[in-house]
């Protein structure tokens, strides 16, 4: 038997670069987007490469992966890449192969789009498919939303700028929903249910107590066994206790659900990166299609599309018009939940006399 190999790291990326990429590495001049989902990059040498970007559900079976490999062999000398948002890209040197590839992809059910001022794939997480912490499914919500927003994926003329959506199934935010134009975040709304039997076996009680940022957990003796209790009013359902102690699950079918956040961005283009802000505190979990969530997201996209100026991301648009106007235009209710009450809450109060109250 061969020696056990460890610490070898990933294979070198050069192994996987198409020749045109290797040749023009670092010498690209410019790009165009001749149609949604297709980029053409021109190098100093005059070489061109056509990138065809197709949607994937991220959760991919080996059947699909093999199909992609076949397409790569057929169209792009066997090469392909995935993007930072889980789309797949085929890099072609022969323009005439672009249309046939797109047709093949479409036939297989992997539509092409997501470039420029579009809505590309939703960054998301595991949900009920794999995670213990999830307050909703991930893939199902994403699929439901993208089915509805599909026209925005396939086009680049319906929006003032790119619009990025992210989904996470609990406050850990593996989908990094904290900086997206629209963020869909599943939330728990019930304090942890304590498994007192398991507690002393699987958890370290002091570290469980100290894990709570609001100090809601106290030690307690239950049925003669050491355990903890949670003061409901002090719990804001962050699940940090559950992360360190399996006996404190927050999952609850009645009260779990979904919140919607808006106006975040990652890029430094124009404005600095921004966090997403609360738009809708809670919508119910309604599988398999989550209609309330889908409608809310669609509505937000439409209001934005209608009112924002060219090159204005969601958050930039809202900053210009102001939050009162945002709530006005969207018809969303402004509640006490929208007002921050965490550590830096006071920094979010309107500490000025600047104010758009207007009666004509």
């Amino acid at each position, binding site marked *: 038997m061969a020696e056990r190999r*460890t610490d070898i790291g990933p294979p070198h990326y050069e192994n*996987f670069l198409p020749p045109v990429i290797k040749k023009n590495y670092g010498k690209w001049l410019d790009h165009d987007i001749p149609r949604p989902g297709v980029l053409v990059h021109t190098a100093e040498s005059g070489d061109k490469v056509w990138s065809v970007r197709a949607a994937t*559900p991220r959760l991919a*079976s080996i059947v699909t992966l093999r199909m992609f490999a076949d397409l790569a062999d057929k169209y792009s000398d066997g090469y392909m890449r995935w993007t930072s948002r889980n789309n797949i890209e085929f890099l072609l040197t022969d323009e005439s192969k672009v249309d046939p590839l797109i047709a093949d992809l479409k036939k297989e059910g992997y*539509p092409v789009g997501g470039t420029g001022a579009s809505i590309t794939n939703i960054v998301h997480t595991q949900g*009920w498919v794999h995670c213990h912490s999830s307050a909703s499914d991930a893939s199902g919500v994403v*699929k439901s939303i993208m089915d509805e927003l599909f026209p925005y994926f396939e086009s680049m003329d319906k929006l003032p700028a790119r619009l990025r959506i992210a989904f996470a199934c609990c406050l850990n935010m593996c989908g990094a929903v*904290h900086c997206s134009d629209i963020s869909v975040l599943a939330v728990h709304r019930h304090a942890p249910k304590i498994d007192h039997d398991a507690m002393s076996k699987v958890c370290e009680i002091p570290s469980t107590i100290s894990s709570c940022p609001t100090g809601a957990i106290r030690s307690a003796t239950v049925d003669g066994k050491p355990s903890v209790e949670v003061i409901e009013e002090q719990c804001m359902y962050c699940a940090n206790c559950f992360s360190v102690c399996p006996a404190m699950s927050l999952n609850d079918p009645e009260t779990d659900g979904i919140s919607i956040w808006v106006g975040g961005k990652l890029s430094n283009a124009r404005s600095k990166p921004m966090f997403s802000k609360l738009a809708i505190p809670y919508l119910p979990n309604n599988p398999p299609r989550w209609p309330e969530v889908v409608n809310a997201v669609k509505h937000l996209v439409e209001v934005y599309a209608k009112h924002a100026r060219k090159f204005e991301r969601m958050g930039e648009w809202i900053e210009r018009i102001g939050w009162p106007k945002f709530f006005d235009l969207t018809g969303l209710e402004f509640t006490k939940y929208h007002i921050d009450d965490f550590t830096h809450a006071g920094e979010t109060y309107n500490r000025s006399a600047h104010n758009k109250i207007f009666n004509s």
Partner: protein
Amino acid sequence: MTEKRQTPKLDELTKGPWPSFVTEMKKVQDNPMVNDLLGQLERSYNEKIGHWKHGGIVGVMGYGGGVIGRYNDLPDDFPECNEFHTIRVNQPAGWFYDSKTIRKICDIWEKRGSGLTNFHGSTGDMVLLGTRTKELEPLFSDLTSIDFDLGGSGSDVRTPSCCNGKARCEWACYDTMKICHEVTMHFQDELHRPAFPYKWKFKFSGCANDCVASIARSDCAVIGTWKDEIKIDQKALQEHYVNGGGVDIARDVVNRCPSRCMSWDGTKLEIANEDCVKCMHCINVLHKALRPGDERGAAILIGGKAPIIGGALLAFTLIPFIDIENSLEDIYEVVEEIWDLWGEYGKNRERIGEFIQRIGLGNFLEQVGLEPAPEMISHPRTNPYIFFELDGEE
């Protein structure tokens, strides 16, 4: 094999134009693990609750990370996916593959697991979704035999990721894929053997557009930038953007420049480069005429993270400019200084961003041997609560 699970709720999700994860699962429903997974998921859809238990410590020999243990809480109903661990496989930089390699991976995963994957996980790994404990060692051996290794998990260096940078982007201010690969190789030990207070993520973007979300999703974000003049091709500007091109230079570019350092008189575009914050907007929009400067490098930002537990943080500028391709050793040194300090004084589950806020950025700089610079902050302190250190002064 048990009979094929019926999934009426999930079947709803095979309809519609967007590619369906349910369809993916159905494609490999012959695998009993997936069959039971479908059953369990349908159950979750009916009951509105997940059926996975908390964690479980499993892994491969000698490594502390790379595998997420997972068991369901309905072993009797769905025995085939009762053990359903996730393997994080370190992706090649920039997520480039060839068909041969993809097929090899599929073959291995067909033999050793569910046949379901994530291409890719949020951190960037190739995620192999669902296998049993007993398969872990053989799987690892199969993977290394085709030159793949595991990624990070737990309190270690997480799998670094990067934008495709110089491979296909004209704006890359440094070679993101090369640096990402080198950093990954350099820190193999720290990646496989968790020894930190909490996780540490590296992400590499070639410019301020930040196509890998490094500023929000990594403890150490390396973002390309330049420090000389933006290159303007006035002729190309006329050709592509004046009368046509769909851009109103005054409204869409000059007026949207965050530092208001551009001027346009209808024929000549001028930039007061000393005021430009390198946000990329003008270059993005006028890409046929404008390019980043020649003196290129990167800024190093520290401390980005999700909300747990003190609230989400965006990374902040620690090193405003460094010629990164020629200074990797310096970066290693700084990073290791930081790890030493954090390792010694960081609390359990305290990310570096929270740690720095707790001890104070000024103290942090002193400890890791960096000079304070106004580029690190948006403005100096407004409160008068200064911890004067008179010893130094007198």
